[in-house]
């Protein structure tokens, strides 16, 4: 004989289970809408890249998040994969910040503004600061060339991204097809240039954000690759965003050592 208490318990379980059987909220990532023709639809790869470049250049600011996977080829030839979660905010002409969460749980935060670049590394709690040029493209080049620091997605930050992707050194630009990436229909473009096979997935429609980038470094041993998936693009910056660096309490300033002597 089942006691009333046990029955009540089962009834509660059944109610809970039935409540859980409610139809799940549709996830856009899993439900690609049908493609429709529109005026911007084209399969001209160069035009798509140019449109993305013009669109990104025209934005006065943006925030974006990216999940990056990159390969590292060991001396044995074995490839290892590492991941980064990155957030970036840009306000033209001269404000930039980004945060990189690595898969070893270290966090790099970087600020750029007023001709100064600062990087904070946690949990080491150290930071360095250097004078840099007052324009973003020049700052990006200086950090890369003299300090070996890679500003994320530097080609998007270039003064003319299209020139990087469609310049004379690009040997082929290929329209691969349409692809569903991070909840958006995109045009998949493949480019080849010396040292790199490059792919970009450009969101279709009026906001041609790059939704994904993939690079294979063709002149490096083992052909390591790099893939970035973008999400949460926005051209309006949060009001609480701060581009000024303030050293955290107890942090130590350290020297930023150039990788090349001028």
């Amino acid at each position, binding site marked *: 004989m089942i006691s009333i208490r046990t029955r009540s318990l089962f009834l509660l379980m059944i109610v809970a289970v039935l409540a859980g059987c409610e139809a799940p909220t549709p996830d856009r990532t899993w439900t690609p809408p049908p493609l*429709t023709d529109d005026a911007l639809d084209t399969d001209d790869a160069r035009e798509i890249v140019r449109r993305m470049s013009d669109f990104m250049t025209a934005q006065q600011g943006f925030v974006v998040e990216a999940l990056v996977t990159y390969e590292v080829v060991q001396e044995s030839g074995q490839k290892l994969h590492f991941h980064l979660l990155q957030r970036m905010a840009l306000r033209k002409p001269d404000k930039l910040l980004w945060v990189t969460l690595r898969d070893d749980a270290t966090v790099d935060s970087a600020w750029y503004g007023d001709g100064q670049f600062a990087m904070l590394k946690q949990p080491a709690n150290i930071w360095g600061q250097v004078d840099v040029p007052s324009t973003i493209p020049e700052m990006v080049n200086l950090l890369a060339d003299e300090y070996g620091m890679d500003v994320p997605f530097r080609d998007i930050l270039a003064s003319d991204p299209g020139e990087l992707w469609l310049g004379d050194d690009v040997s082929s630009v290929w329209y691969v097809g349409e692809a569903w990436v991070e909840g958006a229909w995109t045009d998949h473009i493949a480019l080849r240039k010396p040292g790199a096979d490059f792919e970009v997935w450009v969101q279709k429609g009026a906001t041609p954000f790059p939704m994904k980038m993939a690079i294979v470094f063709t002149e490096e041993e083992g052909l390591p690759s790099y893939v970035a998936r973008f999400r949460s693009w926005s051209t309006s910056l949060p009001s609480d965003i701060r581009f000024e660096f303030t050293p955290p309490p107890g942090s130590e300033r350290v020297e930023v050592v150039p990788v090349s002597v001028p």
Partner: protein
Amino acid sequence: MKRHSFLVIAWLLLTLQVATATLPTLGEAQRAQDRGGRSAKQSSDVKRSGTARSGTTGRKTAPRSTSPSTPQRSPSRSTPQRSPSHATGRRTSPRRTSTARKPTRQRTRRVHRSRRYRRGRWRHHRYWQHRRWYRGFWVGRVLITTAAFVVIANSSTTVVVHSTTFYYYNPWYRRALYDGEEVYVLTSAPIGYEADQLPDGAETIQVEGTTYYYADWSFYQDAPGGGYVVVEPPAGAEVSAIPEEAIAHEEGEVPLYQFDETYFTKDTNDAGREVYRVEPQPPEEELDAIPDGSVSFVADGETYYYVNQSLYVEYEEDGKTGFVNGEPEIGAQLDALPEGTTAIEEDGFTFYQFDMVFFEEVEDENGQPFYEVIDSPDGSESVELSGN
């Protein structure tokens, strides 16, 4: 039996929940296809199969931060190419806004000189004569440190000086950012650090009658209370070796070696032994303001200020005013010499020296005297002045 029925019903319901939580999402995607939307375009020659392999053999095993055995890592760059229009952004020639016109007075006398300046007089300054060539270098000089990257054991001695932590790990290291990573760089001992004993292999050096000891790439003196204290490198000190990691700067006429914030030149001493000589600190590349009371003079309409044994000229860029290290060019003309100029008589010729700038007096067509910047009277250089 009834108890079993309840359990079966509960199990069925649970199964149903799992199934409905999964299938509709996949089904939704399928239905989206079925609704008649056009399918994604694909080039016929796109090969898609067999490229994605899942499954890993484990986590990474190599250290990833400060160890020299860090596996080769691909930089997280987005393209390997750098813009061909790369610019470092550093000012290489300040845009000066002075509108003063260069004087056009003509010389009326010919001077021909060829003589050797006494070498010792500017011995410790000769490298800074070429400071324009070091322009980019001086901008970042305090940042340049050659590095040996090591893992520092937890047992190392740490000393904090002015918020910087020094680690004694035979010899000294401190943290830095290199290639965007946290590393430890070889460094000199912190100034003011006191030790009971000198490190092994210390060499004794005399500089202008004062005794120093050189060890662990650092200079020590006897401490007043006994023991030894780390001091600033004395200019003119000659040591037998510098770290392999010292950076060689070849821009000037003589290579300059930098370790930490100390600069050396390589030379042969009187005993025929190869030595490295400590050179004075280079001047600051730029100043935001000129201290009150600084000596100044005007050459070719531009005002030069003398600060910390260096000359600075005003510039304006992006609406901001600053002062950049620089000297008047050869041939620049002055109405008056700066205060503190020394007259030097040699071979019957009088010239004037202010720091490392040399002048001579000339006359214009009306017989009015003025001064002109001349080349350094170093070595066999000669200055041919045209005119009647």
